[in-house]
């Protein structure tokens, strides 16, 4: 038999349970509380897109910079440098002499040869004249002997004349040989004379890698100094693009917020070889087409980007690529009708640029398709 205490406890528990039930149900509410306006739930609505018509392409961007044309300058002959007037970073004008090879010794040699040739000519003329006078004297003797001498004397006198003439001819020939040798020596030396300067082919900045000192020995056809022509700019793109890529796609440059047309200027074989041998990567070069009066807007050193529109197809139907689904039987989409119902429809797709996909068959412009996650 339960004790009164137990009964009491059971009663209290029952009352508490009843009260709890009432609390949860809110039956005791006395005030009317306005039901808060429910916020439209985000993301519950189906992601969709409309089939549109337009041009499809993918844009690629390649980093680059406006680079001045650089040239390597070298001498045509070996030699030692004379006084060096230029310094790295100096601005020079077109035609200005940059470096000179000391040809003082060569000049001395040429002057010496000139003097020797001149002496040979002068002295030779005098010797010839003396010899002619000697021949004249012998002829006079022959005349005199012919008048009163014996035949033997006449013959001897005639032989003397003949001998003298032969001697003169021989002397002249020998002198001509000597002169020819000297002249040949002069001509060989003179070929290099005057080729001892490097002049600036254009106005620009000059610089060089290794220190150039007076007295330094330089070799022919080895670059000793470089020049940059800031008036001759190209957009050098750090990535190598093939001729085919460039020919098949539309390209343009973006420089300082402006768009510019460009013309492809392929690297020469020598340039490519020089890059590879120096361990650098191949690049691509473009000439920027400047609008009239627009040359001031750009300068060497500016950052630029080459944009390439690839895979262009014009006037096609497109939908976001996320709307295209695939199954074993092919591609399909879900068309969302006016009633909101989604209906599966098979489609035939074309090119895609990673964002949108061309619809070749299966959809009409203006239709709405479901776009999946």
């Amino acid at each position, binding site marked *: 038999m339960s004790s009164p205490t137990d009964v009491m406890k059971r009663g209290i528990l029952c009352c508490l349970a009843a009260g709890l039930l009432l609390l949860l149900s809110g039956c005791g509410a006395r005030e009317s509380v306005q039901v808060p306006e429910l916020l439209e739930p985000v993301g519950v609505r189906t992601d969709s897109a409309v089939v549109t018509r337009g041009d499809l392409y993918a844009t*690629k961007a390649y980093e680059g910079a406006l680079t001045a044309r650089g040239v390597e300058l070298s001498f045509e002959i070996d030699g030692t440098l004379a006084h060096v007037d230029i310094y790295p970073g100096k601005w020079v004008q077109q035609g200005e002499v940059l470096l000179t090879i000391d040809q003082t010794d060569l000049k001395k040699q040429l002057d010496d040869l000139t003097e020797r040739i001149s002496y040979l000519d002068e002295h030779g003329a005098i010797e010839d004249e003396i010899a002619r006078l000697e021949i004249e004297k012998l002829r006079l003797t022959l005349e005199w002997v012919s008048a009163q001498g014996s035949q033997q004397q006449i013959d001897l006198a005639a032989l003397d004349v003949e001998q003298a003439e032969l001697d003169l001819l021989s002397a002249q020939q020998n002198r001509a040989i000597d002169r020819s040798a000297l002249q040949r020596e002069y001509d060989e030396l003179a070929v290099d004379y005057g080729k001892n300067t490097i002049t600036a082919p254009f106005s620009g900045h000059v610089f060089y890698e290794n220190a150039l000192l007076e007295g330094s020995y330089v070799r022919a056809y080895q670059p000793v100094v470089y020049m940059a022509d800031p008036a001759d700019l190209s957009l050098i793109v750090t990535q190598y693009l093939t001729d085919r890529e460039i020919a098949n796609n539309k390209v343009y440059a973006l420089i300082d917020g402006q768009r510019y047309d460009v013309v492809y200027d392929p690297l020469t074989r020598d340039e490519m070889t020089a890059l590879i041998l120096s361990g650098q990567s191949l690049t691509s070069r473009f000439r920027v087409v400047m609008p009239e009066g627009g040359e001031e807007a750009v300068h060497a050193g500016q950052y630029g980007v080459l944009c390439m529109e690839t895979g262009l197809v014009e006037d096609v139907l497109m939908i976001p690529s996320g709307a295209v689904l695939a199954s074993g039987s092919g591609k399909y989409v879900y068309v969302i009708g006016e009633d909101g119902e989604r209906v599966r429809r098979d489609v035939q797709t074309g090119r895609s640029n990673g964002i949108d996909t061309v619809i070749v068959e299966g959809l009409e412009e203006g239709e709405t398709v479901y776009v999946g996650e």
Partner: protein
Amino acid sequence: MWVSNRRVRRLALVLTVLLCAALPGRASQLIDPEKIVADEVRYKTDTAARGELIRSVSGSGSRYYPKTETVFYRGEMALFAEWIASRGDTVKAGDPLIRVTVQYDAVRLQELELRLQRAKEDYAEGVKTREEAILDMQARVDGESDPYARGMGQLSLRQEELRLEAYKLEQDASIASIEKALDELNERRSHEIVYAPIDGVVDDLAYFKDSEPIYDWTALCTIASEDVLFVAASGGKFRYGQEVAVEVGPARNRVTVTGRVVAAADVIPSLDSDRALILPDDRSPFDETKNNSIVVRGNSVDMKDVLLISRKAVALGGGKYIVTTLTDDGVTHKRFILAGMITPQEVWVLQGLQEGDTVILD
């Protein structure tokens, strides 16, 4: 006792029931209706907008005075006597730098001088003798009555005159040769003082002991002119023509000046060097302080007016870049984009978004 306790317990029971009945009525007042939020997610967003994309590079710099001339000794072997200029001296073109004692062949010099003197004397004597002989011959020819002898005499006379010309030519050449040799020898002797070729500051003095031999083409010192100042930068891969900012000075008083790169290896594709020369627009901060803490900064990337979004809005999935757009009606769309360039803070969008589009940040 048990009866009164029962009353108390019943009273407590009734009160408990009443309390439980009243609570629900207040339940609604325990919850603020405004705090009821049904299915709303608050995103951090960004708006696609046109702006400037910049990436900077920096490198260390140092003063560079390019007009530096190395002074060489040119001449016959000499012995060091004394330095006239010292390291750090400011000199002008033509100022003496060093004195040497030229060691020349005195015997050779004397010999040449003697030869020259004799040659001239012999020349004068030879000409006089020949001229006298010609005069004598002339007199004999004039007095000759025999036509043959007269004819021969005239021819011989003419020969002697020509021989005199030849003699003069030979002697002139010989004397000129000796004089030339003497001139060369004297010219080398004159280099006992070496002078500064340009204005500037003397540096890199070569060390010589007393009377140490100095030979032709020995480098003596360098003279650096401060007329032209560049900043030589390294480590930043700066481009020719690029505009840069140069910081100079002590840490508590840094000064920034603008400048432009006037020499860099990028114009010659085969050159691989990260050194560049910069011409500062204002060189006074470099002259006022000799502190060598120089930093050069430039923009390796500088794109204006491009469509940008926050980097946090872009995710990578399947090799493609994805953003989640948020429309005005609160719908999210996952969309692919084509990115041009990505920095830690921003992404340049080439395709896939329009200006003004809202994207959700991750």
